[in-house]
């Protein structure tokens, strides 16, 4: 399969029609704008942040928001909350993307195989059931505790916890698509299994996979905040929205601001992905054509 073929296969997904449909959905527009804002904040954090996120100003702790020099105030060590929120968003998005990547890379092939061959299904689905028996977060906490802290480990732990749901989604799509007439037609052309899975089933399952990815993303962002809050995720002094919450907790009654802003940031990230994901799912569903 050449690169050109891949792009033509995915083309209907990204053609104007989908975008137009999202634009017509007010919730989708809100989600898209939030998402854009969050991504810009994360990507350009080094340019936007007025201070390095770990720089302490011992002379000016607990500043109120709108103080000159510290737009969102400072925390107990005098660190600029705005800078830390921006870097925290960046870290959250990194964790989110990485864990989506883990879930997709492991979940999609397993789901395809499980949907296509019954004997693989027997093994893969039982293992997935086993993993689903534990709440995803408990699983992630366990894995993070075993592997130790840090951004990459947290992302991998959260990604692994999401593999079973990805398997289920892809498996269901595969089961549906392998009975379709165009797959039957491919059989009569003596197309091999890899051809049928890779070129017929996978491109048609892409929309479901993309939508599932947008569901996993906010879960992972939230998961990172929780792991970091518990001290199992990103390690201080690196900025993370979860760590900011956990730090702010001790001084919550003295100055609530250092806790409120990262909380808002988490909420906005999750809201953006959820709204956009919903709109994307509606837009990609061919049954909602009119």
């Amino acid at each position, binding site marked *: 399969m050449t690169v050109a073929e891949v792009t033509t296969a995915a083309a209907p997904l990204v053609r104007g029609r989908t975008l137009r449909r999202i634009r017509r959905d007010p919730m989708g527009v809100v989600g898209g704008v939030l998402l854009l804002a969050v991504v810009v904040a994360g990507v350009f954090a080094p340019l936007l942040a007025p201070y390095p996120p770990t720089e302490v100003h011992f002379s000016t702790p607990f500043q109120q928001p709108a103080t000159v020099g510290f737009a969102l105030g400072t925390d107990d060590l005098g660190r600029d909350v705005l800078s830390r929120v921006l870097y925290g968003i960046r870290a959250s998005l990194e964790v989110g993307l990485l864990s989506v990547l883990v879930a997709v890379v492991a979940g999609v092939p397993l789901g395809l195989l499980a949907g296509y061959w019954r004997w693989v299904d027997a093994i893969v689905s039982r293992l997935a059931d086993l993993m689903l028996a534990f709440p995803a977060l408990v699983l992630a906490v366990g894995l993070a505790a075993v592997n130790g802290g840090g951004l990459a480990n947290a992302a991998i732990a959260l990604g692994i916890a999401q593999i079973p749901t990805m398997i289920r989604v892809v498996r269901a799509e595969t089961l549906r698509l392998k009975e*379709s007439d165009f797959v*039957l*037609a*491919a059989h*009569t052309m003596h197309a091999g299994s890899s*051809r049928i899975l890779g070129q017929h089933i996978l491109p048609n399952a892409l929309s479901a996979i993309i939508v599932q990815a947008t569901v996993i993303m906010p879960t992972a962002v939230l998961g990172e905040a929780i792991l970091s809050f518990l001290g199992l995720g990103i390690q201080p002094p690196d900025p993370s929205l979860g760590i900011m919450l956990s730090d702010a907790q001790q001084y919550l009654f003295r100055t609530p601001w250092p806790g409120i802003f990262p909380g808002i940031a988490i909420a906005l990230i999750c809201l953006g992905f959820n709204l956009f994901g919903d709109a994307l799912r509606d837009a990609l569903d061919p049954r909602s054509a009119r």
Partner: protein
Amino acid sequence: MTAPLLEVTDLAVSFVDSPAVRGVSLTLAPGERVAVVGQSGSGKSTTAHAIIGLLPGAGRVTDGAIRWRGEDITHAGERRMRRLRGREIGLVPQDPMSNLNPVSRVGRQVAETLVAHGMCGRRQAWRQAVDLLGQAGIPEPARRARQYPHEFSGGMRQRVLIAIALACRPDLLIADEPTSALDVTVQRQILDHLEKLTDELGTALLLVTHDLGLAVDRTSRVVVMSEGEVVETGPARQVLTEPREEYTKRLVAAVPSLSAPKRVTAAEVSPVLEVSHVSKEYRVRGRGGVLRAVDDVSFTVGRGRTTAIVGESGSGKTTTAHMVLGLVPATSGRILLDGEEIVGLRGSSLRAARRAMQPVFQNPYASLNPMWTVDRIVAEPLRTFGVGDRATRRSRVAELLDQVALPAAMAHRYPNELSGGQRQRVAIARALALGPRLVVCDEPVSALDVLVQDQILDLLSSLQAELGLSYLFISHDLAVVRSLAHDVLVMRDGRVVEQGPVEQVLTAPTDEYTRQLLEAVPGATVFA
């Protein structure tokens, strides 16, 4: 003349800002039967829905008036319409599979209608529902009323829907393609029964259908619609025998009829495909028994000839086709392609056999990968068989598209940008790509409108003459078979009940079932 029951004048319906129906007028006297005929997208269903105030989504009546016994109901409120629907105007919807609540007993669904319209109290409702089901032709109504919809066949479900529609003895029954999802013999029983019931009750009937033969058979007046407008209206027989408008003429000419001139070409008789004593058994889970989906079927397909398999749903015709294509292994029997056994083939010999036969499936919406462009779809068999390089494949695709009369510009479109007929042409082009000797057509035209159907049948027959193709043609439509096939098998419950040359089987059937099938073809007497 009595005052009209229903009078529609200059009706216009729009969806958002695209008009769906324009200037439609029709009248219906009490007890009269009128058919609205048209292809998909002609606005016939929209008209019917506008009458009962059930336009979907953004649909709005923008002009004209609908009068029910002189009362203007064009913009009547929901309360008035609710009383009108069911009580005064009954509706038999198109799809019997999705219009019954799957978790509620059938009898209860009929009783609910009675209670909702205040026809009787809760106590008598059940008994009356059982009576109604009995009248609708359901055997053992007392027992079957306790069953759930999934325990009913398609025909039986349609009878339930008729019972519901007639429960309150409406003055008008609107039947929206009431039988298009059903087999032809079942369709006949249902319509016979519907006719009898409406006769007894003096109910007027507005039949919405795409089938001109059906319309002429069952109604006294026909309204032909196309692209949202009424093209022609008149007494049923007259419209059929002396159509005035060009569109109606084309429509009448395209109806495959039992006496139509044949497209069949003469050809030599050496067989391409020989199927002998083939059976397929499925193990029925839990009951330890076996289901014989196909039972001892034998036939041949001559070189350059067409053999048709005719049967209703569940007759085993598609399973037979799938066994020939090697998609389903045969339990017993032999299938010879050009004298070589293909049952149980594997690897390279299976590959060679598959190259020699290609399928065209029923539903052109499902048989093309929606994520691929037309040129990629048509080139796929060439790629899987490693024929040629990029350049030669591209020129072969152009040649194939030309053969099926598709403009070269279509090559870069996606299937969802094509019409049903164009998609089926793409599927045919794909089937021809490898230069097969046998093309297995599984109901290739049954999902298409009659004008398009006619074009595709023409295409198939001219390709046969040009390329010397042999067809195994699966169909439920005897008229289509008549116009295309040389030999025919009639299947029922997995067995062949009759087989032979088309002329002989269709003009002098020896089997009772074949005779029933022939009689059930709508418009058979009129077109003959």
